[in-house]
């Protein structure tokens, strides 16, 4: 599943433009319908394992008041068509600078152009990379038992990248992972929240010991990172375990987004989530079991947890997660991954991970 169908972007853009043109010639005000990008407009489909758009849309009709945004959206679509035609890419910031040629229709700040790009993406229900737009964000780091098969940009020849050979460094996930191939015998993928924990595991060659692939997400995983883990785990049928801080952000934002996607990018969640991901830790139970040092939950943490219980379709679907969130709120504390260092720097390698991995069936969904 989840092989992304190649979409004829040019055709989609032309169709939309044609529709606008015809409405204008018919003497009507043209409009475009954008799906509403918010958590309130998604539903969780356990069968396929990700958030899906519910179909509520906002309509942007061309009026005197919206003529500027409307013109900008069309010009952005025209720019995207050009990019696709010549098979080039532009970062979102570059796209913003290109708009400086548009006279009065130019963007004054990058957030304005980012919003228009996100709208166009959602309009066509595609990934912005398909439109030729790429983010500046880093994809994430990989180390361990994996060979990534890429292509040499000049010769087109296969390029095998062995992720065991980066020493104390790591392989960096590229913006577009669609054409990568994989060779691996690893038993599981370990997705880690912080670069610090990733460094510790890499330094001590934990991947060798556990026969796994280590991925550093660096907070909420980027689309590329999510897509990379998804394709890798799908193709090689490897389980994905997620290791994050025990707080509402680590669970509700980082883990939830990796597993089922986000409200904002719901139109592409189908491809940018990892439904087979499981939650290794740190769980609220771990805090008690391992007697971890904690910090009190901040006001925003409590608000986030309550919000998740009330509004997040994923949490609402899983009793276990509701219990975990409730427990966290009642404990009133949070614990970081690196709190395990209290029992020795390598306690995580020698004790915590082996103990947890011995009972993968107990991982939270």
């Amino acid at each position, binding site marked *: 599943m989840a092989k992304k169908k190649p979409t004829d972007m040019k055709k989609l853009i032309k169709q939309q433009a044609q529709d606008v043109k015809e409405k204008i010639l018919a003497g009507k005000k043209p409009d475009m319908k954008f799906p509403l990008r918010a958590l309130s407009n998604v539903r969780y489909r356990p069968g396929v394992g990700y958030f899906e758009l519910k179909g509520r849309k906002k309509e942007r009709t061309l*009026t005197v008041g919206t003529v500027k945004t409307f*013109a900008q959206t069309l010009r952005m*679509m025209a720019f995207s068509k050009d990019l696709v035609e010549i098979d080039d890419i532009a970062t979102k910031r570059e796209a913003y600078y290109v708009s400086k040629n548009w006279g009065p229709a130019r963007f004054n700040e990058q957030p304005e152009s980012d919003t228009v790009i996100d709208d166009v993406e959602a309009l066509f229900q595609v990934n912005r990379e398909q439109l030729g737009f790429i983010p500046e964000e880093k994809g994430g780091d990989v180390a361990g038992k994996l060979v990534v098969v890429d292509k040499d940009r000049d010769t087109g020849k296969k390029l095998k990248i062995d992720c065991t050979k980066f020493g104390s460094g790591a392989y960096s996930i590229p913006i577009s992972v669609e054409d990568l191939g994989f060779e691996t015998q690893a038993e599981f993928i370990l997705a880690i929240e912080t670069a610090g924990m990733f460094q510790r595991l890499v330094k001590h060659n934990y991947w060798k010991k556990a026969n796994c692939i280590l991925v550093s997400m660096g907070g909420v995983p980027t689309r590329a990172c999510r897509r990379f883990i998804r394709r890798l785990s799908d193709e090689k049928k490897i389980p994905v375990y997620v290791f994050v801080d025990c707080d509402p952000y680590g669970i509700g934002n980082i883990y939830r987004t990796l597993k089922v996607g986000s409200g904002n990018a719901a139109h592409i969640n189908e491809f940018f989530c990892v439904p087979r991901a499981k939650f290794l830790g740190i769980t609220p139970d771990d805090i008690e079991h391992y007697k971890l040092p904690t910090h009190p939950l901040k006001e925003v943490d409590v608000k986030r947890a309550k919000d998740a219980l009330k509004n997040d379709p994923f949490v609402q679907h899983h009793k276990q997660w509701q219990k975990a969130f409730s427990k966290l709120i009642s404990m009133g504390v949070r614990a970081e991954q690196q709190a395990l260092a209290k029992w020795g720097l390598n306690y995580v390698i020698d004790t915590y991970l082996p103990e947890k991995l011995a009972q993968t069936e107990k991982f939270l969904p």
Partner: protein
Amino acid sequence: MPPRKKTTKKQATKQVGRKGREKTVEMIEASGTAQKRPLSAAERMASKQREISISEFFTKNRHLLGFDNPQKALLTTVKEAVDNSLDACEEARILPDLSISIQDKGENRFVVTVVDNGPGIVHAQIRKIFGKLLYGSKFHRLKQSRGQQGIGISAAGMYSQLTTGKPVVIISRTRKDRPAHRLEIKIDTRRNAPEVLSDTNVDWPETFDTGTRVEMEIEGVYRGGKRSVDQYIEQTAIANPHAHISYLNPKGDLLDYKRLSDELPRESIEIKPHPHGVELGALMNMLKETASRDVKGALIRDFSRVSDKVAEGICDAAGISPKGRPKQLRPEQVESLHRAMAAAKLMSPPTNCLVPIGEELVQLGLEKGTQADFFTSATRTPSVYRGNPFLVEAGIAWGGGLPADELCTLYRFANRVPLQYQQSDCAITKAVMDTDWRKYKVSQARGALPSGPMVILVHVVSVWVPFTSESKEAIARYPEIVKEIRLALQICGRRLSHYLSARKKAAEEGRKHSYIETYLPHIGIALKDILSLSEQQEKQILIKLKDTLERSRKFV
């Protein structure tokens, strides 16, 4: 006579006071001289009771008359002379032609000269009018006029005399074929009587046939800006569009305010007091001085709106015989008569006695006097407070060169006289603040004047304008007056609001148009690019789209 002990006790306390306060010295010495037989309190008090000279009274109460500081004194002097001139011209049915000059003599001394083309003053009256305080024709009557009390011009003369020692110089001619009289007059301040220093016949120096020229040298301070003489004259010109006023200010600038209307305002009519408005003391005086032999006759003859039947009803209610002699009524009888008069059901006083400037001329005056874009005005029908008829006019000038981010400018007038001081105490200010200007799209902070590029003009006309003090700077806040002012302002406010919405709509149309002009081409460029259109097709799309958008009324 109080017992002696008490007196000594008082002396003792006085002496205690002496150590601390020098002021009491005189008193103690005074009582010390009467050692043989101590004076009674009443006797001691009597020794200090004497006639207060008019100059003393004036010096102590100059603030009441508008001479509290040198800047204001200059304004008041000009104002009193101008008021008199305009009143005189109108009463004589002459289109006023005034020339005012203020000459700077240095060391804070100014010579104020006001010349009018009025009827002139009869020779025998000149000395009384200028040389006697509280002499005049206007105090005893109910008639719309600028002056009311007969205090003004002689007070200015008094001020001149006190500050510079110079007499008032008057030249006046009452007939073309007669010589002009020139008098130099001072006030004998002890007797409140004129003292004529010189009285000669001179050649009439002006071009018109009759008129009066008054010259006074006073101590003062000249400043421009708010509450200045310059502003007073500018506003006088607005409120008196039938007058031609030329003004030479101390800087030597000659300002000429042309006549805007060749029509004299209708003559205001003197009316008798209305029973609802008369004070008890005034009633007592009227009854004493009436020419009627019985009470009923006095009521009918001396008051307005009292018929035979009404007079009998009042007498009946007061328990007084209609045939009784007015001069012989006991004080308590006058009191019950007063109560009965106040309670009687009566027609309102006649209101045709009032002469407003008129909507058209108020607007014309604002157009001449301010650099604005929009003008409106409203004249209300007459109304009554305490038995006195009055009416209110209002006008608004908006936009143009008026300062946009300040509080509005308020022009207050009473019987065509601009009011410059004590704005915050005035009924007009209260009414302007009480009006909800935000309803008319004008911004206004709570409890403040509205702000914006606006001049508000309010004119209160009455046979007796209730000023808060003798200097006539603020109108007392009778609820009836405040209400009428508010109603007049609301009429103007509504018209202003219409104008502002029309302007806003036009601005929005313009914005809409420019918005379309600016961004539409980009829709064309994008569609042409995506769909590989020809220039012709692009043009066709844009024409069609522009048409669709401009036809749509809604902005969003």
